[in-house]
């Protein structure tokens, strides 16, 4: 280790906050530590049946309900690939700009662990279904400029999930007397997506994972539910003393079940490794677990590097060939992806980076927005209503946008009423709860209840004159210099008209009449 770096970092490492700033600003001069992060993401593909057998994939059922002789790997059983798994894997691969392999195969990865019923996992080793791609990740952090970074993706392959262990006699493996196994999850289809080591901060890692999830949800190939384990990320992380230095010792972190946990685990681990190097402690190649309660990573204390998986082609499964016709047929079914939508919303609708990001987070919200704009309403207005009252209602009632009673065309009608000066924003906000609950035509409601804006100057003049006559003291005070009283009159006017007076016109007439 370079002694210069040691002393430099001792000076800089007085507070954790300052150190994390140093670690993140990798390119700023010599002597800073550069974190190198790569992610392995396991995405459960949302098929009804398992990858190689017709057992159900339903989550949360009684233990060992969804098992059969193929799942348990009994002698004489024959796994057969679920064609939906292949379709989903190819679509996911294309969405991540990967090259789809014309020829691909399944291999057996051998190891012993009780959650693996066959003592081997059917996976893909040297001929994965998809290789060499990238996604553009938008990195947004409070108080910092949002930037876009292209993250390379090494590969995507299909494999089967393992079962679940319950450790008895202790809440942890250490100290347990025995374990109980539930194989319901064993054999559920997974796509494993391996990024290149292109990530440099915990925030980038979290944003990358979040974009992968968003893409999978757009495609409809996975629900991406992290709490239920449909999307799991393992992080590989090391630090080095500059972009041109060789990689440091790599540590794997598991057990993060939210994007914020991914970010925090990376940030903690970066600091732990830097500190270890600075104090001359060894950083060993190992697997560590993120402890959400303590907000630290802990060594699993298992021997690494001793694994010998002895991959070989699975003789039970024939090779996979995806010809151009099939591949392009699936490509044609891909929806517009979140990255493209974000870009288009800014370009076509002139929305801010923030608005575009929020509106495209969920495909259903984006499609609702687009339908309202297609119905002729101005994009900015629609965006504001969706992000405000509508999103609040949808979230509070746990609704999907497709089941929201207020249809996008009806929202468009309301926005057009406001923009056309037919109703005020205040009236719109008043009728919205009813529309959200029951749907219906905003125009019909406005007409029926006489909620249209009063924009006839003569009508407003009459009301203003009545007001002035009813409040002679205030009029006198106003004319004596208390011009702040204009607000009082505006309030009175709105009260009298039920908020329907055209605010601009009302102010104009009021000013004129008050002056006398």
């Amino acid at each position, binding site marked *: 280790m370079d002694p210069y770096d040691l002393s430099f970092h001792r000076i800089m490492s007085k507070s954790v906050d300052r150190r994390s700033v140093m670690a993140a600003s990798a390119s700023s001069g010599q002597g800073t530590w550069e974190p190198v992060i790569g992610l392995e993401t396991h995405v459960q593909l949302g098929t009804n*049946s398992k990858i190689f057998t017709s057992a159900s994939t339903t989550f949360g059922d009684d233990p060992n309900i969804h098992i*059969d002789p193929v799942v*348990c790997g009994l002698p004489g059983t024959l796994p057969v690939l679920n064609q939906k798994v292949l379709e989903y894997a190819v679509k996911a691969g294309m969405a991540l700009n990967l090259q789809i392999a014309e020829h691909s195969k399944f291999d057996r990865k051998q190891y012993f662990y*009780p959650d693996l019923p066959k003592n081997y996992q059917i996976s893909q080793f040297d001929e994965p279904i998809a290789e060499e791609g990238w996604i553009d990740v938008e990195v947004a952090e409070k108080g910092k400029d949002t930037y876009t970074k292209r993250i390379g993706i090494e590969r995507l392959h299909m494999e089967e999930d393992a079962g679940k262990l319950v450790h008895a006699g202790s809440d942890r493996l250490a100290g347990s007397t025995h374990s109980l196994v539930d194989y319901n999850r064993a054999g559920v289809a997974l796509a494993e997506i391996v990024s290149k080591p292109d990530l440099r901060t915990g925030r980038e890692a979290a944003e990358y994972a979040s974009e992968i999830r968003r893409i999978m949800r757009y495609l409809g190939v996975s629900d991406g539910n992290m709490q239920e384990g449909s999307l799991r990320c393992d992080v590989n992380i090391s630090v080095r003393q500059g972009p041109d230095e060789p990689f440091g010792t790599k540590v794997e972190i598991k057990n993060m079940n939210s994007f914020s946990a991914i970010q925090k685990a990376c940030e903690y681990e970066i600091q732990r490794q830097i500190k270890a190097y600075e104090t001359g402690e060894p950083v060993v190649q190992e697997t560590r677990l993120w402890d959400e309660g303590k907000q630290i990573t802990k060594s699993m204390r298992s021997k690494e590097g001793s694994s010998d998986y002895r991959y070989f082609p699975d003789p039970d499964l*024939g090779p*996979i*060939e995806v010809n151009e016709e099939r591949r392009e047929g699936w490509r044609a079914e891909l929806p517009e992806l979140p990255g493209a939508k974000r870009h288009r919303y800014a370009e076509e609708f002139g929305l801010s980076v923030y608005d575009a990001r929020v509106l495209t987070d969920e495909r259903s919200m984006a499609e609702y927005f687009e339908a309202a704009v297609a119905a002729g309403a101005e994009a900015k207005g629609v965006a504001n209503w969706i992000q405000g009252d509508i999103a609040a209602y949808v979230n509070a009632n746990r609704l999907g946008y497709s089941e929201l009673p207020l249809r996008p065309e009806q929202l468009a009608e309301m926005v057009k009423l406001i923009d056309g000066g037919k109703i005020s924003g205040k009236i719109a906000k008043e009728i919205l709860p009813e529309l959200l609950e029951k749907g219906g035509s905003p125009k019909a409601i406005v007409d029926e209840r006489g909620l249209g804006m009063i924009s006839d100057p003569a009508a407003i003049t009459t009301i203003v004159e009545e007001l002035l006559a009813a409040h002679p003291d205030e009029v006198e005070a106003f004319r004596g210099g208390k011009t702040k009283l204009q607000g009082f009159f505006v309030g009175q006017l709105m009260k009298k008209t039920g908020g329907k007076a055209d605010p601009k016109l009302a102010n104009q007439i009021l000013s004129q009449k008050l002056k006398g």
Partner: protein
Amino acid sequence: MSKITADDVRKVAQLARLSLPDDQIETFTGQLEKILTYVAHLEQVDTENVPPTTRAVEVVNVTREDEVTATPVREDLLDLAPQREGDFFRVPKILAD
């Protein structure tokens, strides 16, 4: 031709979770060596222009529809295990290696 050593046999036995007493190590070292020598006869075949194959039957894209069929064999499968506990398979304490 590589020679099988006693250490190779110990490693393979460990990977396969086989417990071999020392006196058997020698026996299996000789046997494995013989098996490999026999299989090595295949090396005499000229495979210069033959693409590698992984199976005897040439089939591609054998797939099935994504349909769920329940197989009511849960009890049978659980009973086949060395130990069950309720609806779970029970396994001994897991060592971290």
